[in-house]
């Protein structure tokens, strides 16, 4: 090896000022890009807020500022069916979240820690289940729900949502438990802990972030679900929010209650925003946990 072979190609370095300019331009591009993404994701929600505060013909004029007229909101909060659907949604979504976390943790503990030959197969099956499109399982589910006598009951929704939420909670939590230091668990075993005590006293307290992130995802999924909620619920008083909004009618056949739907959409999104804000820090920690060591 000669020094000449190792030397960098002889190219004149540009002036410091030109590097500074380059860095500024890059930064400018980044700001523009972030702005575009933000507008793309936030504008629909902003538009819903704006529309929900406008009356009648004002709706069809393209002004970007809200009119601060809360008539629709008042009407909405006097609407028994809508309020009922909020309660239903809260019940369905929180039960789904709680159940999928419990099932997910138990399954993940087994899959992540206990060595049994079928483990890989089980994990693959879980992954397969979670990629079926909803429509594929819809008719089969319908039979199952009927057979269990759950038709037109919110519990039917919980059962079907678990089909979607348990696989991904299991996957995420399995990854976490796999990366959990084995020696920590062995220390607990020597300290005399049962599997259950290890789970409750050692694993769960350390799993907060992963639980928060998977829990939120499950909650959002259950809260927003439309197809199953439309299919398995017959009567208005058992509906969940997305369907209730979708089926909102105007005072006549020809009127589309645009403002009211917008007001309802804004209201429905608020709980999610609050939840995400509360758990924000834990979620970020959870989603990146295990990505890098430390």
């Amino acid at each position, binding site marked *: 090896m000669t020094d000449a072979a190792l030397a960098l190609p002889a190219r004149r370095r540009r002036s410091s000022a030109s590097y500074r300019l380059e860095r500024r331009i890059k930064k400018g591009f980044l700001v523009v890009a972030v702005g575009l993404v933000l507008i793309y994701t936030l504008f629909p929600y902003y538009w819903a807020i704006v529309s929900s505060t406008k009356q009648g013909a004002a709706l069809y004029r393209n002004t970007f500022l809200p009119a601060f007229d809360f008539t629709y909101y008042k009407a909405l909060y006097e609407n028994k069916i809508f309020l009922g659907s909020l309660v239903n949604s809260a019940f369905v979504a929180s039960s789904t979240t709680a159940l999928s976390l419990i099932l997910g943790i138990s399954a993940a503990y087994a899959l992540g820690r206990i060595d049994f030959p079928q483990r890989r197969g089980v994990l693959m099956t879980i992954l397969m289940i979670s990629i079926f499109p909803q429509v594929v399982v819809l008719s089969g589910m319908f039979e199952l729900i009927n057979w269990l006598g759950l038709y037109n009951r919110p519990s039917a929704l919980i059962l079907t949502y678990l089909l979607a939420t348990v696989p991904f909670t299991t996957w995420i939590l399995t990854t976490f438990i796999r990366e959990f*230091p084995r*020696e*920590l668990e*062995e*220390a*607990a*075993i*020597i*300290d*005399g*802990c049962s599997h259950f*005590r290890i789970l409750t006293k*050692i694993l769960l*307290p*350390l799993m907060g972030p992963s639980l928060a992130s998977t829990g939120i995802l499950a909650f959002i999924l259950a809260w927003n679900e439309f197809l199953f909620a439309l299919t398995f619920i017959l009567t208005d008083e058992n509906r969940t929010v997305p369907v209730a909004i979708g089926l909102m009618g105007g005072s006549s056949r020809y009127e589309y209650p645009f403002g009211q739907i917008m007001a309802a959409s804004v209201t429905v999104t608020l709980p999610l925003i609050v939840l995400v804000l509360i758990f924000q820090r834990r979620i970020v920690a959870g989603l990146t946990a295990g990505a890098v060591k430390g």
Partner: protein
Amino acid sequence: MASVELKSVSKSYGGNPVIRGVDLAIRDGEFIVFVGPSGCGKSTLLRLIAGLVPVTEGEISIGGEPVTDVPASKRGIAFVFQSYALYPHMTVARNIGFALETLGLGRDAVRNKVAEVAKLLKVDHLLARRPRELSGGQRQRVAIGRALVRKPEVFLFDEPLSNLDSDLRMEMRIEIARLHDDIGTTMIYVTHDQAEAMTLADRIVVLNHGVIEQVGSPQELYHTPKSRFVAGFVGSPRMNFSPVKATGVGADWLLAGPGGLRVESHVTGNRSTPATIGVRPEALSIVAPGSGRLDGVIERIEDLGHEHFAYVRLDADNSWVIRLPARPREDRDTKVGLSFRDEDLFLFEESGARLDHAASHERSAAAVAQPSGGGMAA
């Protein structure tokens, strides 16, 4: 306090043998150190004794009672892990007291015992902290405290000091030795560190590929290793080896090797052919070329202040290291002779077993005269 006995213990992972027929009797109160190359099964053997992994075959007893199928928490052992394995979400006090808490001891009783242990290990001012707020040495103390609080009959350590820097390591080494003197509990200790093995052990167990090569006091292993493997493993820097060609001359062997080596040697006991010779770096001295046992060229000199290592190349394949108390007068690239005493010569046959020769008995005698770990040498 308890003895530990392993009877032809084997362990395989998926048909892959890791521990193969290990027999070992550890006396009550003994300090045993496991050494061996990486992957030879030291940790596995320790985990088998702890009950963290089930044995594939064989029997383990602790304190004379068979415990082969007894769960880890009921074996009366405590384990100190290399990574400390402290519970990150608990304070130091809870970390130490967790085992007692699990046992269902009352709050006050737990607090008293924790305070007692914390004081012994000088971590009583840290009780309210979390593990991440501690230094490495403090974490290690807490880990030992957690083990100590259970009043175990056998202490198991898996490379407990390997994450510490060398000063702290020496300090903790002395503390562990003191702890053993104070409580007198049987201890089994895995390490890579020569100094830890030599200073702490009553007896060292040398493992190789899941088999015990030799068990003995540090002095026995140093002076009378059973095989080339043990000779190369105990002592630092390791023993110099060279292949030799042996020609029979009457009852003696004439050995010829690299660097113009010519030694006459009278092998006693079984008269098999020596294939390798070994000389420890500290047994060699530098003399004028031609006046020693063999010649070579100094390739490199390392100056550590209190000692010096000279690397001498004998031929293309063989380079020996010499340990010297002072910097040699000779410079790099000078030709030198090396000399050693007859009793410092080790002979090994093709299979690696060590051969006794006429002079080696003097060395064995020296080994026995050495004050070894309280007459524990078996």
